[in-house]
């Protein structure tokens, strides 16, 4: 029955929940290519805690001005070691990195003065939250009046006003983490390293902090960010790098990582009326006859769902079948792979399959 199907297909909605990012990835990633915009270039960087046993090796990536770069990886993948080497706390064993164009091995006070670091280990002084902020600002040479007003801003932004007089070790885990980030933002910087800054934070606070960081990135702050929460990396980062066993398995924009490692997507079809058992059987038989690469995941009278390698083909097949038996399709959705799915697919692969130990996507 020609003439009916297009109307129904045009009603198809695509669930694109993973695309509601804070900062559009396009544009900024392109700006990274210009050498004068690169604030951090990592060149075959490696570090071994004991001779021959590398915690990280052959890392190569760049971070541009105003870019947010996320480092993802399982526990022990090498994220924290990478941050510690890049912040000059550990000397590289091999390779190097260039901070603001200067070899990491020769970086000193002037380079470190241009960056901020929120380490995974909580650090504090034995004074009140507010005094910690102003004292830290004092260490960074921030003028007293500026420090005072910035402390007020940070206390409000990170919802620490009520605990300003308390000692940081008496705060809850989430408050202490907010305090760590707030304190680091007391001084000016061009590059900020954040090692799992949102651990233990509730969703609302996490979003607020990510919003703020995204805003700072838009104003030119470069951020290197490690996290276990892949959704926030997807939201915040212009580019991400996936570490596995100390090697950078992949790096590029989240969309690219998802596209390349997404695996099967979920196709869900909802019909105007419940399908009979015979119709369900017929649909599955038709799809099996016409192609492979899909797995039914939910079949009931009104909705049927598949995981499909080629979602577009499957959508077309379902539409044709429905058109042929004169059943209206109310909705067909294709749910894009999440970064978490791509990450799981990526780190589940055999790392030896990638001979270089990394894959360039950018």
């Amino acid at each position, binding site marked *: 029955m020609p003439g009916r199907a297009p109307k129904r297909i045009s009603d198809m909605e695509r669930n694109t929940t993973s695309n509601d990012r804070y900062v559009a990835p396009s544009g900024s990633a392109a700006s990274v290519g210009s050498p004068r915009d690169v604030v951090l270039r990592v060149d075959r960087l490696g570090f071994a805690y004991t001779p021959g046993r590398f915690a990280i090796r052959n890392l190569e990536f760049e971070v541009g001005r105003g870019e947010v770069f996320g480092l993802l990886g399982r526990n022990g993948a090498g994220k924290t070691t990478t941050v*510690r080497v890049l*912040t*000059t*706390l*550990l000397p590289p064993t091999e390779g190097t990195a260039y901070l603001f164009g200067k070899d990491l091995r020769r970086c*000193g*006070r*002037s380079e*470190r*003065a241009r960056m901020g*670091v929120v*380490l995974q*280990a*909580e*650090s*504090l*002084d*034995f*004074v009140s939250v507010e*005094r910690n902020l102003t*004292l830290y600002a*004092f*260490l*960074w*040479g921030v003028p007293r009046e500026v420090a005072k007003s910035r402390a007020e801003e940070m206390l409000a932004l990170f919802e620490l006003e009520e605990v300003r007089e308390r000692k940081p070790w008496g705060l809850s885990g989430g408050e202490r983490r907010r305090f760590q980030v707030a304190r680091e933002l007391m001084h000016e910087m061009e590059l900020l390293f954040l090692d799992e800054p949102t651990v233990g934070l509730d969703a609302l606070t996490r979003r607020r902090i990510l919003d703020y960081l995204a805003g700072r990135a838009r104003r030119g702050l470069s951020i290197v960010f490690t996290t276990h929460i892949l959704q926030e990396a997807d939201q915040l980062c212009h580019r991400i790098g996936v570490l596995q066993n100390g090697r950078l398995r992949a790096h590029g924009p989240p969309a690219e990582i998802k596209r390349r490692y997404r695996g099967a997507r979920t196709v869900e079809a909802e019909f105007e009326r419940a399908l009979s058992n015979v119709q369900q059987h017929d649909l599955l038989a038709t799809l099996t006859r016409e192609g492979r690469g899909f797995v039914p995941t939910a079949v009931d009278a009104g909705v049927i769902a598949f995981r499909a390698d080629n979602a577009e083909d499957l959508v077309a097949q379902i539409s044709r079948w429905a058109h042929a038996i004169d059943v209206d399709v109310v909705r067909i959705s294709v749910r894009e792979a999440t970064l978490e799915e791509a990450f799981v697919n990526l780190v589940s692969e055999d790392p030896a399959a990638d001979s270089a130990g990394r894959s360039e996507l950018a």
Partner: protein
Amino acid sequence: MKLPPVVRLVVRNFAANLDPITLLVMFGQPAFLIAILGTMFNQLIPTVGASGSYIAFLVPGMIASQMITGAVLSGRVFWLDRRWAMVEQIFSGPYLRAEYLAALLLTALLFSLVGVGIMVLVALPLVGLPALSLFELGAILGTIALGSLFFGGLLIALGGRIRSANLYFTIQSLLQYFLIFISTVYYPVSSRTPEVLRAIVYANPLTYAANTVRDAFTNRFGSGDLLAGAVLASLAAVAFGLAIASFRRLELGPVQ
């Protein structure tokens, strides 16, 4: 005006980490000892060598012991910085390790001088103001400075190697009591002192410092004190070297 990095770190060392109770105990205890121990023993001990009264003997010893108090407080700052990851935070900022070490040693010295000031204030009503020449005053301050460097360097070197708070504070307490009690801070050494004990007392750098301060107080500063100063300076240089070595090999990361 932007202060030099070492000064900023010293100000921060004073402002952070040290709670008033700790300071009260650290400086209050020797002040209490001068006031109570000195007064009580003064009744029992009629004269002690050139000092005259026991309390006049005790005061210079307690002043010299302030170099240990300063070193202990500075070592405490360092240990707490390690424990609460502030060492890493500072090293990842606009500071050199050498500046942080210098700031710790300067902190030890300043705490020692604060302690000296408190001891003098407590002792004044009891023993009066000693008639010191500028040279003798300089000798006292120089001795305190060298002693602070020595003990400060030693505790910082230890603090950089030990990864357990229990072990560090146990060693520090033992060292503190051993050095103070097996020295001439509280009592003189005479021919009646057992030989082994006398050898240990004379090997203790705090003895040199206590004797030098005491000699300056009684206007008997001489070549022996100059030699003691030279030994103290050499020991301070060694402790400084140990602290540098400890800092070079300092393992950053969590400590218990």
